């Protein structure tokens, strides 16, 4: 079979999980607990296997791109959109890690979701998510990508609010969907603009035509697309949904809100880079600034979080900022590299966090943990490797990827961005170290109690996700000592950690071993290259990067090496002072938005409804009716019942008539 014939079957990659989703949605309940999960996991594994086949097939194809059209989706006049898939290095890279990481997280979920009443539904949604994500990255046109884009949004909604009986979960899911929709608005308008300028939404048309566009138009398109990416990838100022999205089950946070979906924005910008390039740099500048700002701000917020998942959430936002930073300086391949590496270590971290939470009766407050290393050895192992990776300690993948990004930024001449990025890297090392020490080292700040005394079991739940205010810690009272998770859970953690450890080999910054960069070369061929001017400069930068990482690591170690004396005894808020409070409230961003929405916006909408719609418009309608009826009532009184009066009417009419005739006769 020819490689291209094989690539024609790329649709099987998303079709497998889609099939799984369909089966599970219809029969998930009947299949029951283990079978539903195994089916979903198995299909994901198959999908991964097929992705590998696709990779091999694509390697035998030149040029490295292949489009498959399944059927016509939009056959309208000049707008012809095919339901088509595009296999090129970029999409294949994505499907590989999506299916790969996805499979592992499916496996993990088998353990994590054990005993949940809606086990089947969970896997249905997970499969559906993977299918959508695969459609997103495989799409041959903006519209198909958008289909997947919205599909992952839907699944994110479904999975965040999976435990919908909790109000906070339901609200968080809605918030996630609506906030990303703001970005989708940009995506849609971008598509309108692309169509009206290029007459097509296909990527091939973009590649051919983008460079011919006026810079202004290209900038507009690029920024609109970036708006979409900002929403999806939780960049400032649309990042607010991601921390709340942690209400979802932890595998969801790992898969969707760390490894895959949130990187869709990165994918989009990478995919649409011709527009960004055609904008003459201005769009890219915006991307890099937003990216850098997000990286730094999110990192500061992560410093002081006490909820383990929230730390990871802000960390994700920050890391995504790095990715955009990379994109903004034109280091597309570096960004993708970071995406992949991040997928490994962040997934591992999340899964580890899930394991911790699982082990300690759904407690997520790090202040009431400590010393868990000995209870959860495998989890700790995975978590610690991933921590080293994210902190930028060589030779783990995070080091290579982050270093690649920062050095590209430096070489591209964006020194400001580089400084901000480096600072963020320092902070990253700090907050991750803090988390590791609070969770796995130091004193144990929990106590086991009898099951009988255990109050109603509740997860650490935010009262209202819109106000992530400081929550006073409750000492965790566990029904039993913390215990290691089953192998279905620990295996993915360790496996991902291992990938995080060695993932750097994908693209080492040495001429002949930049595998990923070279692999992606055809996709970004038209983008200007950033040359590493000298090996020395490169090495120096790497050194600086490592040093900064270690500094952050060390400071955290100094503070937390003994753990904290009591749950309330975290010294950090005090030391940071005003800044601490700012970080704690995530710069009050959520509060401001919430107050805006609840205050003026709500009041305006309420006035629109009650004051304007019911009062003015409907009031006018009813007013006319009343007016007519009143007129009827008044005219009715003319009918006095007196004959003479009636005759008066006749005479009046006659007189009027004669006046009229007299006037006409002149």
């Amino acid at each position, binding site marked *: 079979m020819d490689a291209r014939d094989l690539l024609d079957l790329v649709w099987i990659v998303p079709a497998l999980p889609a099939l799984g989703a369909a089966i599970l*949605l219809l029969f998930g309940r009947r299949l029951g607990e283990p079978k539903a999960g195994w089916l979903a996991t198995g299909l994901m594994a198959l999908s991964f296997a097929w992705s590998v086949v696709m990779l091999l097939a694509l390697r035998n194809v030149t040029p490295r791109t292949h489009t498959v059209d399944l*059927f*016509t*989706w*939009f*056959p*309208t*006049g*000049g*707008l*012809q959109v095919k*339901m088509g898939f595009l296999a090129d290095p970029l999409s294949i890279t994505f499907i590989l890690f999506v299916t790969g990481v996805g499979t592992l997280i499916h496996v993990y979920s088998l353990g994590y979701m054990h005993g949940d009443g*809606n086990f089947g*539904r969970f896997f249905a949604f997970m499969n559906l998510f993977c299918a959508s994500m695969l459609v997103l990255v495989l799409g041959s046109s903006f*519209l198909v990508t*958008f*289909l997947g*884009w*919205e*599909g992952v949004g*839907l699944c994110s*909604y*479904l999975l965040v*609010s999976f435990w*919908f*009986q*909790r*109000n906070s*979960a*339901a*609200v968080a*899911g*809605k918030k996630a*969907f*609506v906030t990303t*929709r*703001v970005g*989708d*608005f940009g995506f*849609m*308008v971008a*598509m*309108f*603009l692309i*169509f*009206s300028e290029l*007459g097509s939404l296909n990527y091939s048309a973009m590649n051919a035509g983008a460079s011919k566009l006026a810079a202004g138009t290209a900038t507009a398109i690029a920024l609109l697309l970036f708006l979409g990416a900002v929403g999806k990838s939780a960049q400032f100022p649309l990042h607010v949904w991601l921390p709340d999205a942690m209400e979802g089950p932890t595998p969801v946070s790992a898969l969707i809100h760390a490894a895959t979906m949130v990187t869709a924005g990165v994918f989009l910008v990478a995919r649409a880079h011709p527009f960004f390039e055609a904008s003459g740099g201005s769009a890219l500048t915006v991307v890099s600034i937003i990216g850098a700002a997000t990286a730094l701000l999110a990192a500061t917020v992560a410093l002081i979080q006490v909820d383990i998942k929230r730390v990871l959430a802000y960390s994700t936002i920050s890391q995504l900022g790095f990715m955009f930073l990379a994109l903004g300086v034109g280091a597309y391949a570096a960004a993708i590299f970071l995406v992949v590496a991040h997928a490994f270590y962040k997934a591992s971290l999340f899964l580890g966090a899930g394991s911790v939470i699982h082990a300690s009766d759904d407690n997520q407050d790090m202040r009431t943990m400590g010393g868990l290393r000995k209870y959860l050895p495998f989890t700790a192992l995975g978590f610690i490797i991933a921590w080293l990776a994210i902190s930028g300690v060589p030779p783990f993948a995070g080091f290579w990827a982050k270093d690649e990004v920062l050095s590209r930024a430096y070489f591209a001449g964006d020194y400001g961005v580089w400084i901000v990025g480096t600072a963020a890297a320092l902070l990253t090392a700090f907050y991750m170290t803090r988390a590791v020490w609070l969770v796995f080292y130091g004193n144990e700040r929990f106590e086991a109690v009898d099951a009988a005394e255990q109050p109603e079991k509740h997860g650490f739940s935010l009262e209202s996700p819109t106000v992530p205010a400081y929550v006073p810690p409750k000492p965790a009272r566990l029904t039993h000592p913390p215990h290691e998770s089953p192998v279905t859970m620990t295996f993915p953690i360790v496996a991902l950690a291992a990938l995080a450890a060695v993932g750097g080999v994908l693209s080492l910054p040495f001429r002949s071993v930049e595998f990923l960069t070279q692999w992606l070369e055809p996709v970004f061929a038209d983008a200007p290259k950033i040359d590493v001017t000298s090996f020395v400069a490169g090495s120096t930068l790497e050194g600086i990067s490592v040093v900064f990482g270690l500094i952050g690591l060390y400071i955290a170690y100094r503070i937390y090496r003994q753990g904290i004396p009591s749950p309330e005894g975290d010294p950090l808020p005090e030391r940071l002072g005003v800044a601490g409070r700012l970080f704690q409230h995530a710069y009050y961003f959520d509060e401001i938005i919430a107050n805006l929405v609840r205050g003026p916006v709500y009041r305006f*909408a*309420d006035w*629109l*409804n*009650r004051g304007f*719609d019911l009062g003015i*418009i*409907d009031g006018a*309608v009813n007013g006319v*009716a009343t007016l007519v009826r009143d007129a009827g009532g008044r005219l009715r009184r003319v009918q006095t019942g007196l004959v003479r009066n009636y005759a008066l009417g006749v005479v009046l009419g006659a007189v009027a008539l004669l006046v009229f005739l007299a006037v006409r006769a002149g």
Partner: protein
Amino acid sequence: MRDAGFPLLTFIIFTPLAGAVLVAVLPRRRPEVVRAVGYVATAATLGFVGYLLYAFDTSASGYQLVENHPWIDTLGVRYLVGVDGISLFMVALTALLFPIGLIASQTISERLKSYTMWMLVLESALLGVFLSLDLILFFVFFEIVLVPMYFIIAGWGHDRRVYAALKFYLYTALGSAFLLVGLLTLAFLHAQDHALTFDLRTLTVWAPGGLSDGTAKLLFLAFFAAFAVKVPLFPLHTWLPDAHTEAPTAGSVILAGVLLKMGTYGFLRFSLPLFPDASVFFAPMLLVLATIGIIYGAVVAAMQPNLKRLIAYSSVAHLGFVVLGIFALTTQGLEGGVFTMISHGLTTGALFLLVGFLYDRRHTFNISDFGGLWKAAPVFGGIFLAVAFASIGLPGFSGFVGEFLALIGTFIVHRPYAVISAVGVILAAVYLLWAYQRAFTGPADGENATLRDLKVRELTAVVPLLALSLFLGIYPKPVIDRVEPSVRRVICGVERGSDYKEPAVATRRAAVNRDDCAHMNTRELAGR
């Protein structure tokens, strides 16, 4: 054109009426027979419509299966019916929603006989609206629709039904009053030099050139009055929430699914072909109103405490997309408009069904009375959510196809309107998901914790709509292929009758090779 061999359209229009007559003579004490007749009549109609879909010639742009008989000779009024790509799917939608409406009406036992009769009469009338090619015949059906709908609301509605029904009647009747004067004026102006006729095809040929500029504008406004109320366009919409809220379930389904489309259909079928120049002139006004409607409908919907009212206002927003698309005057816009009409019929119809089922269980529409329903009724919650997403316009559902086309079609000629309207896409998610969150998620207590899940009967009503919405969202081609020739005809008519030129980008690679309007002769433009 494949010939049906028998007056298919007449059969379609009058089968439900025959059913109604049959119901009228049935004994009151046999409700099961009454129901059966209702089902058989609507199913038979659906069957005929199925045959129509088969017999429809996909490539033809004109009216097909035309039947033409004299009716009121002294006025030149004829029984003239025909179908084209635009009306085809309106007919299909109507024929589909009625059996479903009857399924949903299974809970009605009071005065079942008259209820069934009115439903069947309503179906006939609506089918007549979409199939008439004679202006008076159209008006007759357009107007008669009010009567059964009025009785259905007033007879089987909720608390404020009398007020709502009356408001509905008067509002819409007032609009159509001007339509009547308008179409009479049109025909008599034509009759100055020609035989008096109300044949749309003849008038379509004459009107664009035959009317003076000012007259055409006035007539456009007269037609506009009727259609805008029906749509309903902001600010003529306030009858809609009341009518919807008070109507029985099937009434709401039909009202939203089909009745509102009479307005937008009227724009497409009459306003554009007859007054192309005035349409172009007034298009900005309509676009503004549509845009306001989209945003306004969504914002006000979000504030509704009543689930049905919420959906009603969402209809205002959805229909805003339709009008937006139509008056964009581009291929994508018009097709988007038509498609949104179909899609809105499916999704909003389904939403009303579900809300009705909820009412059957809990006897309230107040969102605050619900909470956590998903737990007790997983299928209900799941389907409701799916329908809600279909209504939000999630890609993969039909709503997206329609709205996207309408917006993109608008964008290529009037960018600001499309951009502002696209905000409505965000807002749709806000109001529906917020409502869903309050009603279906969170902790459940009291009756909410023991809500019965959907029964098979109820599933039979909803699932086809949802499935169709999904199918059309993924594979809209069968619809668009049939709509496109007719839409092209309308646009070419507008181009011929005005200075307007559709941007090339909209048609560059049109599927039909006759897309070049210059090649369309007058006969074709008239749809003959």
